[in-house]
């Protein structure tokens, strides 16, 4: 842990740093690749939609010694439909029968209970009409759409449109990855999954917003200096918030991991498990995208602005001029840049540097 603390200090001082923005092409490539894989997976394998989306019945029995194959047979007899039976961690059975009418389910439950020699009252039933899943899914998409529009508007106001666009892209990216993983691995998609996926929305943006916040601050007076390009500062923002991003992600993942292991390990499949699985995948994707995609994208978009383009030209020209060639390669990671600016650049740039970004507030 203290290693991470040291890392934090070194990141803060700029002793170490990774050129996220400089290597963005690699990460864009990685993301495009992942996205393509996700889309292909989705197209080829499709999603394994749970019973809630197709309609059918899920019965959960109390503890029993009846074997899975036996239960499958019983369920088939009782319903006339193919049944999928899973044994859960606590020796209970989960019996899924698709394509049965909600109206018929009571009879099925009764006869199942008889054959399994159980009290029907103790069998849990989850019956879903075929249109319910559609409705949940539709509402989820609708919610997703509304949320995205609102969040883009909000980010455009709180920050600026480029950041809003970048955050939007990162969000779509997270969802694509998550859905892709579901398609590829074949995890079952349930309303719990949808809940998890929708939660990722807010969460994925949390890290992104933290980085953007720092970025906005540090680039406030960027055009008044000619030492760093926007990309340089964007990269520094990522690095200086890296420890924070790692910590927030870890802390967010820990309870979700608790849910996942309890939900999956102890209780067997169920809502806890469904939610936490999609959260787990989505949170990881969200952390990745806020660092590797959202911020570099902002830098890309920003540097299309004429004044920043001009700045970049100025900076690059200046760097070529000076003897410190290595600066062009990896120097800009330095978090102390603004502190150091006066020392290196001298009085000429001092006023600009001091009023820039963090300088203004911190001193």
């Amino acid at each position, binding site marked *: 842990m203290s290693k991470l603390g040291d890392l934090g200090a070194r990141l803060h001082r700029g002793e170490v740093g990774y050129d996220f923005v400089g290597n963005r092409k690699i990460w864009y490539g990685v993301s495009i690749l992942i996205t393509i894989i996700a889309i292909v997976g989705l197209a080829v394998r499709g999603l394994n939609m749970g019973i809630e989306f197709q309609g059918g019945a899920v019965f959960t029995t109390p503890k029993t010694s009846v074997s899975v194959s036996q239960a499958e047979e019983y369920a088939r007899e009782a319903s006339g439909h193919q049944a999928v039976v899973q044994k859960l961690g606590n020796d209970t059975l989960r019996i899924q029968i698709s394509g049965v009418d909600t109206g018929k389910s009571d009879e099925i439950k009764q006869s199942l209970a008889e054959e399994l020699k159980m009290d029907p009252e103790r069998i849990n039933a989850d019956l879903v009409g075929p249109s319910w899943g559609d409705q949940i899914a539709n509402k989820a998409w609708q919610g997703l759409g509304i949320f995205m529009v609102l969040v883009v508007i909000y980010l455009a106001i709180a920050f600026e449109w480029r950041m809003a666009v970048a955050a939007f892209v990162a969000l779509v990216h997270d969802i694509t990855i998550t859905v892709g993983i579901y398609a590829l691995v074949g995890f079952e998609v349930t309303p719990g999954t949808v809940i998890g996926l929708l939660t990722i929305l807010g969460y994925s943006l949390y890290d992104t917003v933290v980085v953007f916040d720092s970025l906005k601050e540090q680039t406030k007076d960027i055009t008044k200096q000619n030492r760093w390009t926007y990309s340089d500062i964007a990269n520094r923002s990522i690095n200086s918030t890296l420890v924070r991003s790692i910590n927030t992600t870890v802390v967010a993942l820990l309870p979700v991991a608790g849910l996942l292991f309890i939900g999956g390990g102890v209780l067997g499949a169920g809502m*806890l498990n469904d939610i936490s699985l999609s959260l787990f995948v989505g949170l990881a994707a969200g952390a990745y995208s806020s660092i590797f995609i959202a911020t570099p994208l902002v830098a890309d978009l920003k540097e299309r602005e004429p004044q920043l383009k001009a700045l970049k030209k100025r900076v690059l020209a200046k760097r070529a001029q000076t003897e410190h060639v290595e600066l062009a390669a990896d120097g800009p990671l330095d978090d102390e840049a603004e502190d*150091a600016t006066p020392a290196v650049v001298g009085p000429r740039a001092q006023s600009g540097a001091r009023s820039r970004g963090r300088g203004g507030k911190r001193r």
Partner: protein
Amino acid sequence: MAAPKKGRSAGAQSKPGRALALILIAIVALTGGMFASGHTTPRLGIDLAGGTSITLEARSGQESAINKANMDTAVEIMNRRVNGLGVSEAEVQTQGRENIIVNIPKGTNSEEARDQVGTTAKLYFRPVLQSQAGSGATATPSATPSGSASPSPTSSASASDSGDKDKATSSGSPSPSTSATSQGRAVTDALKADPTPSTSGSESPKVTDSASPSASASADADTQALQQKFVALDCADEKQRAAAGKGKSTEPVVACGQESDKRWTKFVLGPVGVDGTDVTKAQAILDQRTAQWKVVMDFNSGGGDKFAKITGQLAGQSSPMNEFAIVLDDAVVSHPYVTSAVTGGKAEISGSFTQEEAENLSNMLSYGALPLTFREASVTTVSPALGDEQLEAGLIAGAIGLALVVIYLLAYYRGLSLIAIASLLVSAALTYLIMSLLGPAIGFALNLPAVCGAIVAIGITADSFIVYFERVRDEIREGRTLRPAVERAWPRARRTILVSDFVSFLAAAVLFIVTVGKVQGFAFTLGLTTLLDVVVVFLFTKPLLTLLARTKFFGSGHSWSGLDPKRLGARPPLRRTRRPAAPADPKEA
């Protein structure tokens, strides 16, 4: 920009006790409120407490029929149905635009409830063939003695039998013509008609022919069976009542109906004359002239014709055969009598209605007129055992999650983590208190997704502390001592926390408003905890840190405080060392 923030944070610094006192008072007040309300635990949803939860989806040929008024009426009717089963705890509520959720707690017959609730409300107008009031109640007030209790082609003997059996009114005379008549609901087209029913004696049983052709067509055996049923029917008995009224629309049935004075009347009803769907509109209106409430209804053209026909047949007959029954869900909700044929597609039902009664009736008539049906979208039955298990699993998962977060924070932030942990506990306490209070207040029920939301929220809440602590540590790395570092870090951390919490809250709010079912419970908890996060960070974490910064342990950066400047790699104090520090930096070259 820097100046006002400085001023504010300086202000906050000077009075950290005030904020802490405020949150303490809030907690005490909420706790007091919780005990005062008598709900010391959050209300549990069906999936945690056991029971059955039914989600119904409105279906309609025309989209516009699914609107708030119709849904509310449907909820009201379903409420009547489930509560008719003696399930007083059952709750029926709309969710989203087109769903109705019916939660039936454990211990009630969920199958029966499902039968009741899932079916479409059926509204019919059936002619009354025979009626008998007052099972088990006081004598019928001002019963109009009418000899004929037997319009259906059966003997009056059986009618008197029924009188005995039902220990109805002094049973010598078979079935007086009902309180209904005396309490008179008259259907007229002009309201001019004399409300006194004709009290002619036993008229020909042949009237049945006109009222219900199929009855006469049916075999004697059928009518006899019907009569037996009528005799045997005891409307005071809940079970019998629930079974009554069922039957084909083309055949006569026995049914029960409750009068406004709560007494039950039983009926033999003819085949359906007019379908409820033929009513295009029904409204409760206060008659200006008589100062009485009445219900007016409009029929569509087919319904108008049918209604004219049925009223034409009923008018002029003896009571109770001049009545028609409005049957909703197999129960007679009203049985006005007819004095003349009602033509023209409009009708009025007048009588001694209270406003509420009139509105109820018009609602039911309206509802029956709507092509709104419901389909079971999902039914979840959870045994109490599994509910307990799931709740337990949720709590264990939450405890493990919390423990993991605490361990991580302890290891990483050392002493500082105590503040984070205390803040998490305050946040948890507030969440628990508010959830407990929201149960009775707005019917909030903690379900499994909501538990999940609360667990996930641990991470979100901890995030805010991390944002702030990292800021503080950054300041310390800059060479500041703790007290100024705490204050300087706050304005910027505050902004970050607000912006990102706003995004979280936005997500939760949109989810809550747009989505349905289980997603809602999750969104609600997430939104609530996000709000509480802001409250806790502002009123607890920050003031507490300010206070603790004054202590020696934290203030001097003890190596276990998590704020040890050396460990954080701080440079020696700011001004003095800036220049020497710069060349030391490898990047500066």
